[in-house]
């Protein structure tokens, strides 16, 4: 009998705190798998945000530094500048990276900071109980947009990966999702490429991953997956929005 799937040693044995059906857990696992696949675990320092991925120091088997809300990329910059020979990634939610930390995100991209940011976009503030985010879709009901996101009041959702693809220093920008096995595989490939771009010293790499929040969206896990597809995906440009012309930068 051959092993087709096993728990990655990139993760600890601790079970996660994520709500049932939340796809954050899938994304964490993908990152850990890629760290192992690429043999990076031993020299990786991850930076976690404040948000639903803010407890990941318990799950990742590598060193983790916890940043203040919105500052994961600034902290990752400090870590990488101090240890240029280490592999450094940051995790951020959409509130963290696209609202309070937007300046840090764009500035790190502009500097071509040699770090990899994984931006987990669930169009809502999960941690704080379901408030509107810059990436909430038009009409989306949240705790702070109880009548639905109103364009007059809040504008259109911010397509952060699209924005970053315009920034010179961002060498690799991808926008992927995880609602189906095919999408999960594509997401893993994008993470892999982003990490390769850092290793090759090409500049900033950024992977936006659309994720669910069944709890705060107020739907079942299965419905959440179809919401991701029907409500979130139309809001954002998808795919590899920017890739460096480099040989050897390929997926797994």
């Amino acid at each position, binding site marked *: 009998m051959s092993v087709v799937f096993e728990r990655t040693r990139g993760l600890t044995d601790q079970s996660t705190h994520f709500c049932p059906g939340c796809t954050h857990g899938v994304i964490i696992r993908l990152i850990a798998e890629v760290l192992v696949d690429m043999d990076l675990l031993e020299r990786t320092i991850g930076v976690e945000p404040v948000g639903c991925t803010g407890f990941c120091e318990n799950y990742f088997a590598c060193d983790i*530094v916890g940043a203040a809300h919105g500052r994961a990329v600034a*902290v990752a910059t400090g870590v990488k500048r101090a240890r240029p020979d280490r592999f450094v990634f940051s995790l951020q939610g959409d509130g963290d990276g696209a609202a309070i930390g937007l300046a840090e995100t764009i500035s790190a991209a502009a500097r071509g900071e040699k770090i990899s940011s994984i931006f987990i976009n669930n169009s809502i503030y999960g941690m704080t109980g379901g408030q509107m985010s810059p990436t909430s879709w038009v009409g989306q009901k949240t705790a702070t947009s109880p009548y639905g996101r109103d364009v007059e009041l809040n504008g259109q959702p911010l397509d952060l990966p699209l924005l970053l693809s315009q920034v010179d220093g961002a060498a690799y920008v991808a926008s992927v999702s995880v609602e189906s096995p095919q999408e999960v595989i594509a997401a893993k490939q994008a993470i892999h490429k982003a990490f390769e771009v850092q290793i090759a010293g090409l500049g900033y790499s950024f992977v936006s991953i659309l994720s669910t929040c069944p709890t705060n969206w107020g739907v079942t896990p299965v419905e959440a997956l179809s919401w991701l597809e029907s409500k979130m995906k139309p809001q954002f440009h998808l795919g590899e929005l920017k890739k460096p012309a480099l040989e050897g930068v390929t997926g797994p």
Partner: protein
Amino acid sequence: MKTLMKGNEAIAEAALQAGCRLFFGYPITPSTEIPEYMAKKMKRVGGTFLQAESEVAAINMVYGAAAAGERVMTATSTPGFSLMQEGVSYIFAAELPVVIVDVMRHGPGLGGLGATQADYFQLTKGGGHGDYHPIVLAPATVMEMVELTYLAFDLADEYRNPVILALEGISGQMMEPVEFMPYRPKALPPKTWAATGIGDKPKVNIVSYVLANEAGELHNLHWAKKIERMRAAEQRYDTYRMDDAEFALVAFGISGRIAESAVDILRAEGIRIGLFRPISLWPFPTDGMRKYSRIRGWLSVELSAGQMVDDVRLTVGSGTPVHFFGRQGGMTPDPEDVAEAFKMALHNELNAGGVR
């Protein structure tokens, strides 16, 4: 060999000598000579100077570099220091060694660039959230800036705590002869707590949250112990003509220098007065000050509306009069003004004892 140097530049040079290899900052007058010096000289030592997009980003970059175990510094001025407060609170909670320079300018608001010491409360009472204390050192001369910068890096590493150098814009801009004594690092244990990858040591997590209340309290009690250790061991002050003094001025930084001249003026008039100059603003040098129990009256001289005077009162108690004299908005008093203010404020006590 002595060289003539601006205070800000001397601090930057001293930091390099003390092994600071990363600097993150955002320009703001009157601190900008520090990042500019670093921009020029960091290459010499193979370090990194990075201009951040804001003070918020700068302090968090500093946090990251310190977490990775390197000697790191930032410098700013009052409004930028305000922006850094959340970061300082996180740095304390994550127990990271960081050196911050606050070259004060006057406020509130955008304020102006003149001499001030009005960041005292923010510096010493915890400018950010939660129960925490950075060590705060206030140099009065360019030479002392060098000594205290050396010390700041050692203290930061020893206690794994933020250490702040606080000076007035006028002191940062002032040129004085200075000598760079060889920096001799304190023997300190290796930074096994740093996040450098699990390749050569067990996994490290550097986080500052504690969600369970019981564990939260244990953390606070742990920090309280550290705060007490620092309070007991790191009080610093200087005195001038205090040996036979009946009265005392208390002043730090540039006010200390002005007050020193005021002491001479008053001594020439036969008043037995001295100067007590706190060097550590936190921990406030209470133990040293309490040795002078025979002092019949204190005058706190500050460039603010009166901030340190609270700590003087707490230290000497209600039995001894403690008065305040200060200028604000960037103005500095002349020594004569201080002498005059002293005679007015302590008029009764002076007459009761008779001028000798």
